[in-house]
């Protein structure tokens, strides 16, 4: 019941605030834009700090991508092609995956 009441209150506040909002001053808009950009920048810095070695993290990401692509390739090889077109598609897709794996491996 209290959750329902809180939701209703929140909804009413949104309605009330919405009614007021049709013109924003230049100062408010600048503050909003700068705050938004600063938040994205600050959080990105925190994210980079959380990953002390970004290069290592990217390397790990690429290794995981290769592993996932290898899984995908094995799975595709295991699929039964019921016709020529599907067979050709599967083979093209497997080739594309191999190229992707090879390109990622070169980057490592």
């Amino acid at each position, binding site marked *: 019941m209290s959750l329902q009441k809180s939701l209703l209150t929140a909804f009413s506040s949104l309605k009330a605030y919405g009614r007021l909002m049709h013109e924003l001053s*230049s100062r408010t808009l600048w503050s909003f834009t700068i705050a938004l950009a600063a938040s994205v920048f600050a959080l990105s810095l925190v994210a980079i700090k959380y990953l002390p070695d970004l290069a290592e993290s990217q390397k790990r990401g690429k290794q995981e991508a290769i592993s996932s692509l290898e899984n995908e390739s094995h799975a595709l090889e295991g*699929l039964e092609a019921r016709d020529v077109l599907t067979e050709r598609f599967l083979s093209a897709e497997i080739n594309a995956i191999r190229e992707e794996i090879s390109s990622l491996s070169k980057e490592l």
Partner: protein
Amino acid sequence: MSSFFELTLGIISATGGFVDVGELIFTAQAGAQFVYSLIWVVVLGTIGIIVYGEMAGRVAAVTKEAVFTTARNKLGNEVGLIGLLTSFLITVIVCAAEVGGIGLILELFLAWPYWACVVIAVLFLLTITWIMPFSWIEKTFGTLGLFMLIFLAAVFVADVDWGAAAYGLIPTIPIGVPLPKLLLYLYFVFGIFISVMMPYELFFYSSGAIEEKWGIKDLMTNRLVTAIGFSLGSLLAIAIVINAAVLLGPQGISPQLLGSTALEAAIPFGKWGLILGLFGMLFAITGAAIETCLSSAYIVCQFFGLPWGKEKKAKDAPIFYLIWTGVLSFAALLALFGPEPMQMAEYGVIFSGLALPLTYLTTFLAANDRKLMGKHANGRLSNAFGILFLILVIIAAVAAVPLMILTSLGQIS
């Protein structure tokens, strides 16, 4: 009868044109990795795009002004210019991802080198966008995108646990999972949310309303097209999540390439499923490529008050034509020499989040201005949902890029 036909066509093209390359990637990977648990995000994003699409269409119909004409009035020149630059750059990246996506699908069809397929794609796009009238472009590719209904049909053939799928409609955040897995989940939450609410969709929809000379009499059409068309379109996106969960995930396939998504139709239906699935994806992505290149020209011309419109001849709107042809050509170069198309699509979606707040704020301010809109200004319900989604897009804008860094573009788990 004629207006009923127009309405039906509008709904059909909104349905078929709902999915683009970014959504295909995020929804398919989300289904393969998190089964049904992210369906709620597609629904949430769809409600958001319905609310704001309706507002943008209503503002265009009442004031004859598209999003970036109002941006200059509502945000002022400086903040408006920041919004314009962000939106333009991101729309160009998304356009490049769409062109690359077409190249990849043509490569599968024709077995020709990727570069040749991209060149064919861009020549086709330049020709078709130049010669086709606006309404034909929108309706042709939107309608042909309905080939993607094969993905919806696949859901009914696949062995879906409907109870679990219905449970996926309830917003959840996994508790007790390792931190990297939680971050990956959140990355997909914001990725799907942004991909459904891409800013170019608002630019194109509101500019399209003006191209098609909408007026007050079209307000009901606007409401129905956004509510029904976008809802039906989101069913396709949900179908891709479900199919990936049932058909791809259990086989260890987490679709890293666009072609893998077509397997969702090939596994249950064989050759014809594959053909229809690939055609549907091809047309939907082609439509999105045209929408993005036109949108980039729309927003620049609208902001600077230059003549614009597909219905105008090139000599009457030279800058407009120069921008969209330039953007398409540059997008082809990016698709050829830039990052991998799938990677570019992910960058496009995540960085689009940065353009969402100013785009949506502009639309909200205009739709809520009684001086401008008179009795057609937002009601209480539109305001409540408008503010709610404004808060959500701000959260998405702030969180998406850091999550992309933390998960190394969704690769770490």
